[in-house]
């Protein structure tokens, strides 16, 4: 304790180098933890997003692409699934439920998802949790909308709010579906999945705003637009959807059902098992993650090398100080531990600041980070992993302190009480 106090006072007396050393350790620790946290957050968020779904079916594409656009709302589908094909597979005997998904429209940057009420009943996230309503209820009529928690919060919409949706993701003036006011009838509880940033409407709603459109382009003459009241319900049967989720009655049927979809002759379709697609995704992302982590580890090494440099360069100017300590009774061992203490203290302060800063930063800026990433990041807050990394940094700092400690120890033996300076 005595030695730690002396070491701290000594470090404090060299304020500039001490602060810079601590800063470099803090930054490198924060970087390593930050990389890991965003990685973990993304992973857990992805893994939390689909559960209870046996298969995701869309037009023929790679499993990762299908998974990303259907569930995570990242990227775009290559083609649609025709309504006929959907009906064929939805009516298979071992199908427990299906949830059709129709994407492609947006409102103020939030994706609009056309679906059926099955979505609210069968979609599961996290530990097989069902969607629940914070306010209102499931959509009922054509222009009813159910907002994800984050969408409602950021848009500031409450029940009864009315809005338009636009074609595509960017709000481009000319392609807006004007005069088709959707009305908020329900707001979901927060889930920590892309559902939070999604606006849910009925398939018919999506269909209704596209009446009169041809090949993805709005009607040219304004008068040809159909008034809401004129829309005939029978017209609202969609021709196609983007993808659909399937729940089967028995898990043993999954592989056969998947093969049937993949070999379906009338239309080129793909069926993927969410877990399998996710693990493929992790394999792809894994290399990048490793590289990132490698960089972060090297930054830590650089930070700790800085610590060692600082202490080693201070040794010469402290030769006198050490001789004085020896003269008042410090053992050579004390001199050794004085320097080890100093290295440990600096590493500990740096690691602590780094860990706290990265957590604070992620909590303070989570909204911005999530908005930029496009998906929610879970698992913020000090974790056991932070503790391990911080302890690791401190331990390495402690171990590095042995080198200056040893040099000072040797010197204290040969210098005796007098030092030529």
């Amino acid at each position, binding site marked *: 304790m*005595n030695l730690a106090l002396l070491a701290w006072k000594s470090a404090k007396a060299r304020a500039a180098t001490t602060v810079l050393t601590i800063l470099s350790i803090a930054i490198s620790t924060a970087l390593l933890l930050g990389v890991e946290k965003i990685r973990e957050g993304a992973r857990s968020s992805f893994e939390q997003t689909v559960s209870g779904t046996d298969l995701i079916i869309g037009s023929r594409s790679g499993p990762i692409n299908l998974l990303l656009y259907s569930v995570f709302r990242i990227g775009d589908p290559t083609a649609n699934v025709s309504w006929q094909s959907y009906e064929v597979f939805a009516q298979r005997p071992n199908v427990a439920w299906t949830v059709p998904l129709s994407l492609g429209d947006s409102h103020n940057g939030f994706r609009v998802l056309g679906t059926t009420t099955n979505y609210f009943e069968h979609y599961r996230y996290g530990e097989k949790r069902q969607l629940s309503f914070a306010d209102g209820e499931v959509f009922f009529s054509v222009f009813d909308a159910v907002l994800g928690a984050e969408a409602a919060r950021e848009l500031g919409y409450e029940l009864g709010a009315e809005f338009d949706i636009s074609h595509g993701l960017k709000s481009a003036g000319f392609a807006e579906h004007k005069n088709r006011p959707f009305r908020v009838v329900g707001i979901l509880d927060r889930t920590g999945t892309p559902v939070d940033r999604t606006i849910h409407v009925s398939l018919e709603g999506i269909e209704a705003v596209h009446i009169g459109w041809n090949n993805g382009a709005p009607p040219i003459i304004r008068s040809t637009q159909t008034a809401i009241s004129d829309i005939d319900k029978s017209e609202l049967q969609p021709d196609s959807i983007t993808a659909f989720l399937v729940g089967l009655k028995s898990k043993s049927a999954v592989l056969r059902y998947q093969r049937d979809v993949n070999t379906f002759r009338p239309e080129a379709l793909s069926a993927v098992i969410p877990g399998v697609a996710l693990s493929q995704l992790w394999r792809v992302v894994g290399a990048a993650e490793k590289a990132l982590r490698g960089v972060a580890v090297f930054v830590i090494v650089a930070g700790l090398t800085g610590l060692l440099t600082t202490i080693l360069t201070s040794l010469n100017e402290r030769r006198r100080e050490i001789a*004085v300590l020896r003269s*008042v009774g410090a053992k050579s061992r004390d001199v050794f531990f004085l320097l080890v203490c100093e290295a440990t203290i600096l590493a500990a302060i740096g690691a602590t600041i780094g860990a706290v800063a990265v957590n604070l930063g992620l909590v303070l800026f989570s909204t911005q980070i999530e908005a930029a990433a496009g998906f929610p990041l879970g698992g913020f807050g000090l974790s056991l992993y932070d503790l391990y990394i911080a302890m690791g940094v401190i331990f390495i700092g402690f171990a590095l302190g042995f080198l200056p400690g040893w040099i000072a120890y040797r010197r204290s033996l*040969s210098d*005796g009480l*007098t030092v030529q300076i």
Partner: protein
Amino acid sequence: MRTEQTPTPCVNIQNLEYTWANGVRALSIRRLYIRQGERLFLQGPSGSGKSTLLGVIAGVFAPTAGEATILGQPFHTMTAAARDRVRADAMGVIFQQFNLVPYLNLVENVLLPCRFSRRRAERVGSTGAERIDKATHLLSRLGLEEEAQTNRSAAELSVGQQQRVAAARALIGSPSLIIADEPTSALDAETRDAFIETLLSEAQHAAVLFVSHDALLSKHFDRLIAIENINFSQDEHAVSLPQSAPARAEA
């Protein structure tokens, strides 16, 4: 060789040899004896082995051969850590200059030995506040009243003031032996004598081993020994180490 002298001698060196790791022999002393409370002036030029001898007496260097019983402790058989403890408990050391730890204030510098010896700390005072009080008191007696109270940092003091702080540190907690290695060589002639007077009067019952090349200062002391008369003398070659002795031997 037992004598009838009742008190244990402060320093009792017999047939002491000290050889550096590089094989250079720095000390060969047949006999050196310092009584308790004795004020001894050790005179000699640099390179004569003075510093090495002080290192042995302070317990920093272990004798290569022979006996060095310091304050009743057989240093020649003890571990380095045990010798360090004796130094912390019962010795005070003053260097030529740069005696103070720059990042500690004056009182902390004076109380530095208390960090390494509980026994010494208890002799100074039973509580931290009491010890600080004692240190401030001692500094005032050495003419540093104002400096102690304003708690100035060591770097703000003149060399003479720094030496007095070092003296206070050596004196704190009533040590039995004070080793002063050329403590006045950085001082001017007027302050030199005053410093020695103060040191000796404050040292009370402690033995003082005062090293200097300046024989004029010996008038303050009970006894004068020239190092060349005891190192490598008598039965050995009666010569001092040549001036060209390796630097390490001087250190």
